[in-house]
């Protein structure tokens, strides 16, 4: 069992993000460019301006995520070799995997690509081969996959889903996808990325009750609520609703108690609290652009909060 841990990771488009990705499937949605950046940082191909990525497990691997994380990047490039099989063989050697390249390709239905020159593969084919390699990496401590279901014309969708769920039993599997429907297919935990910050699932995606709290210190309250163990989701939009925070929990009483306790403990003024069961009037989540506004440069605030 291992966790992927981002600590104060800061880069272009990314505010300081502190996030722990535990075993299981976690889907991160948002704008493609920053999502791709997060995946590149987790895969170890990009060094963030600040912060670090650690694979926390039996043996911590600080900043060695590239060796232990199997990844599918937004744009893939195979190791230079005369053909795909030899490129895969080189990658398997570097990763210390004793697997047959042909088996890796065949398992993903890509046997036909084995004899092709890597430089002659198109964008989708390169990603398909690298997805097959990533999913075959049984020694990886974690998986970070950018939009893996988009290669389904080449790799069967069922194969990708089964492999993700199989790995997710004991390892963190982060699927970054700009398509919200992928998150719904994969299930698991949903995170959204907006304005340089990762948020836990917006309240209306889970079950239970949500509270809408109006406060002039909503940003501070959101940060505190995100650290509460029983809170399953916190939504704070600094631009659209700077004085409102929505928190979600399976237990409405505990949620209300948390809000009032935090307000008392930290001297936060609360204007109003409205508790509502989420099933009563869920906003339509089908249009991701409503939920996930375009990412803007990071702002000071509750960056990296997740519940």
């Amino acid at each position, binding site marked *: 069992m291992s966790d992927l841990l981002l600590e104060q990771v800061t880069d272009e488009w990314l505010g300081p993000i502190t996030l722990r990705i535990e075993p299981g499937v976690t889907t991160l949605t948002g704008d493609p460019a920053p999502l791709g950046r997060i995946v590149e940082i987790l*895969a170890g191909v990009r*060094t963030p301006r600040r912060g670090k990525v650690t694979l926390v497990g039996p043996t911590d691997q600080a900043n060695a995520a*590239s060796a232990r994380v199997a990844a599918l990047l937004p744009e893939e*490039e195979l*190791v*230079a*070799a005369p053909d795909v099989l030899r490129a895969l063989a080189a990658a398997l050697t*570097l990763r210390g995997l004793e697997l047959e390249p042909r088996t890796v390709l065949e398992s993903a239905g890509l046997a036909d690509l084995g004899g092709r020159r890597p430089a002659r593969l198109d964008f989708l084919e390169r990603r398909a081969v690298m997805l097959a390699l990533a999913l075959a990496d049984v020694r990886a401590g974690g998986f970070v996959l950018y939009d893996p279901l988009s290669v389904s014309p080449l790799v069967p969708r069922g194969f990708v889903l089964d492999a993700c769920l199989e790995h997710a039993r004991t390892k963190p599997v982060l699927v970054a996808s700009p398509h919200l429907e992928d998150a719904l297919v994969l299930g698991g935990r949903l995170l959204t990325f907006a304005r340089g910050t990762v948020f836990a699932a917006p309240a209306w995606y889970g079950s239970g009750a949500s509270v809408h709290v109006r406060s002039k210190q909503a940003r501070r309250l959101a940060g505190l609520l995100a650290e509460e163990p029983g809170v399953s989701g916190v939504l704070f939009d600094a631009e659209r609703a700077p004085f409102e925070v929505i928190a979600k929990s399976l237990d409405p009483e505990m949620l209300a108690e948390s809000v009032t306790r935090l307000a008392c403990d930290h001297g936060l003024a609360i204007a109003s609290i409205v508790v509502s069961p989420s099933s009563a009037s869920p906003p339509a989540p089908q249009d991701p652009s409503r939920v996930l506004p375009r990412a803007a440069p990071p702002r000071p605030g509750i960056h990296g909060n997740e519940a």
Partner: protein
Amino acid sequence: VTGKTEPRRVSPEGVLAARAALERFLEAKTWLALPVGIVGCVLVALLERRHGVGAADRALSGAAFGLSLPILAYLVTDSSLSRRRLSTNLSSIVRHGGSPSAAASGTLASVLLFSTSTGALLGALTTFVARAGTDGAWLRDVGASAWIGILGGAAYASAFVFASSFGKRGGGRQLLFALDFLFGISSSALALPWPRSHIRNLIGGTPPLELSQPASAAALVLIAGLTAIFAVRRARA
């Protein structure tokens, strides 16, 4: 305990990176610039030979080491790195756990091999065409031009690979190319960091800051060595 140690293995990432650099270089058709450069140097050497004394010096300082060598070294670096930043170019190896330093060493070795052999070939051939049979020392000069070409090629190759670790797309190498042309032609202190000024000194041109020829040879070795070390160290950046 027998004290026997296993032979040290060449790092697979280094070999992969070297092979990748070579493959990209050949695929980009940049190698076609080599015959063009050679033909150009031979023609210039023939023209200079008709003007008598100093033909080899003029052909070397102009066409061979002044123009062809830096351009070819730049082109081979540019194509070997797929016109990208050094670290970006190595990412396909580093992401699988390969050592960035070893991979950068492989790329550097590939670029060095081409640049030094190009330098040797350009120097030897140009001197041969310009001087063959003119006096008794021409053969010695062919040899001397070859090793100056090797030193110059090594300095340019390492410096360009190091410069490729700067800029989003490795634009540092373009800046280096321009600065070498701009400042390398002078003989002031500004010329000291640039290979052009030291190569010129070695082939009998104006020395930078009145440096001796052995000092310029040492400077080229220093430029090649230091930039190679820093290129390998910055492979992750």
